[in-house]
């Protein structure tokens, strides 16, 4: 009998890295060239919603690797997003109306934000990854609520106003140009993170994560240190989500509790479930559907100036209904693989 050496086939991701690099360079070119041209109102709305789509894409990819691939119900992506945002903002801000600030150079602030996110990921991971799936959801959810409570209520975090005066490192010639540049840079970062997530999912490590999702006890019986692997997934996620928060602070120049509400977690989760948990591409597409609906209502609202809150309510009703229908009739999501659906 001939022995076959198992080979690992990576999807060729060099193209992705190249696309990502081009996008980031384009963004930087806009910033440093001082280029300026007019943009119409609708394009500006598209860009504004697009920026948040890209920031949330940096949350949905790690959540998908954690839940879709490994089966860990992390219900607090906004916790790490918030840690990155607040740590970066407070350390880098050169003077905020409210709250304690330090005025360090921004790269140090970003680094500190990511390190803090890792530490929290490690702490939560080591202590709670032994809990049952839905309890893990409760702990991560509660932890995110605790962060929200602290930044809103404890003095020094700026209260409801938040932290301002963060250096806006993406400042271009004018306000619309800044947004355009940030869109390119963020799109590049999302492509990088997508390539990374794809690589993790396809690697031997990724297959092990899927094995943990399918049957953790069996995987452990094969001699795999499942607990360590689960903690590692939590830490990888923490890095990316913390970084997403840092980028929010540095783009926006300010952070406030309004950016880190439970709604962000819900949006990210719904996007992933609609697109297809377990598929990196699917979860990003799903998020795009949700943000696309948001964009559509924003533009439609511009055209028919009826009550904005009624419009928003209608949109959220549609999203809620869509989620229920997807879970019921296509639990693997629109782009998910129905054969890989132990979790859902």
């Amino acid at each position: 009998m001939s022995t076959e050496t198992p080979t690992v086939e990576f999807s060729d991701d060099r193209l992705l890295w190249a696309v990502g690099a081009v996008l980031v360079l384009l963004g930087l070119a806009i910033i440093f060239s001082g280029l300026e041209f007019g943009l119409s109102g609708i394009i500006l709305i598209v860009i504004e919603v697009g920026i948040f789509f890209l920031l949330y894409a940096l949350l949905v990819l790690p959540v998908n690797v954690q839940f879709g691939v490994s089966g860990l119900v992390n219900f607090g992506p906004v916790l790490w997003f918030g840690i990155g945002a607040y740590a970066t903002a407070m350390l880098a801000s050169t003077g905020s109306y409210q709250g304690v600030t330090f005025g360090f150079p921004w790269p140090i602030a970003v680094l500190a934000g990511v390190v803090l996110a890792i530490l929290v990921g490690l702490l939560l991971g080591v202590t709670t990854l032994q809990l049952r799936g839905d309890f893990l959801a409760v702990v991560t959810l509660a932890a995110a609520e605790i962060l929200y409570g602290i930044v809103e209520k404890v003095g020094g975090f700026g209260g409801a106003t938040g932290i301002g005066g963060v250096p806006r490192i993406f400042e271009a010639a004018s306000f619309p140009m800044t947004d355009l540049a940030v869109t390119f840079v963020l799109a590049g970062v999302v492509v990088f993170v997508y390539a990374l997530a794809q690589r993790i999912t396809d690697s031997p490590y990724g297959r092990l994560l899927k094995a943990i999702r399918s049957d953790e006890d069996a995987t452990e019986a094969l001699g795999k240190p499942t607990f360590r692997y689960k903690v590692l997934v939590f830490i990888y996620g923490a890095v990316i989500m913390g970084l997403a928060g840092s980028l929010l602070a540095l783009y926006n120049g300010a952070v406030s509790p309004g950016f880190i509400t439970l709604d962000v977690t819900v949006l990210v989760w719904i996007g992933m479930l609609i697109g297809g948990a377990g598929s990196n591409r699917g979860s990003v597409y799903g998020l795009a559907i949700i943000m696309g609906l948001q964009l559509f209502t924003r533009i439609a609202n511009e055209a028919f100036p009826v009550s904005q809150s009624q419009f928003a309510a209608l949109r959220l009703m549609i999203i809620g209904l869509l989620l229920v229908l997807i879970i019921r009739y296509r639990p693997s999501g629109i782009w998910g693989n129905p054969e890989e659906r132990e979790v859902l």
Partner: protein
Amino acid sequence: MGVIQSVIFGLQLGSYIAIAAVGFTLIYGVVNFINFAYGEYMTIGAFMTFITVNQWGLPAIVGLLITLVVTAVLGWIVSRIVFVPMQGTGAIPMLMASIGLGMFLRNFYQLIAGGEVRFVDIGASQFEFDFLGGFFVSTQHILIISSAFIIFALIHVLLTRTQAGIAMRATSHNELLARASGIRTKQVRRNVWIVASALAGVSGFLIGTTTFVSPLTGFNQILLVLAAAILGGAGSAYGAFFGSYILAFVITFTTAYLPTEVSGLGETLAFAVLIVVLLVRPSGLADVEVEA
């Protein structure tokens, strides 16, 4: 503020959380999932306060009884449409579906009722006392706290003295065994949905009389209800009852006694208590068996 006053506020908050937490935990035990849409069941009760007391001018106690029936029926209908056909798909898909349902209902209320906040005056009278540091009790406090205790007595009787309640406990403890013993678990689940929806309605009604009525009334409490139920030991009605009062006292005493910089952290601290309990004792206060 005297200690007694804080205790009264704690009892008040604990009471309406506990009523909801008992319903929440029954669903968790018998239907087996974390129902994030439960807050929206409570909101129906809150709107019923506004309709029965403010618009129809009924006394609060009559309104409460009407609310109980209406929410039991509405809650059962909603569950019948969304959750009953999903039975057996697992805890996580049902949890996700409940998030979608909650979002749908919350915004549906918003669409038909508007976002504004409505206040309900049940015409409570207030009794002031000068001893023990001075405190006051209103008929509202009495209504809420006594409703809670009457409901627990009823739930206790239901769970220990009636066939339907014993079947609920059996199903909660081990569904397969219950079915093997001839218990119709499908009917048990239906009963649980009816009871839990009614409890949500009562809790929402009481919240409506104390704070305000808005499409988010229930949603604002859901995390606390969830925390209380899990703290008590998911699935245990008695645990949920004690868990609620513990959280309520944590919240009222932090607000009353800690320095102002951190006194707003009551709820935050309640979540911290939840996390610590889950880590130290995942089975909760009532020591419920937890499958790993």
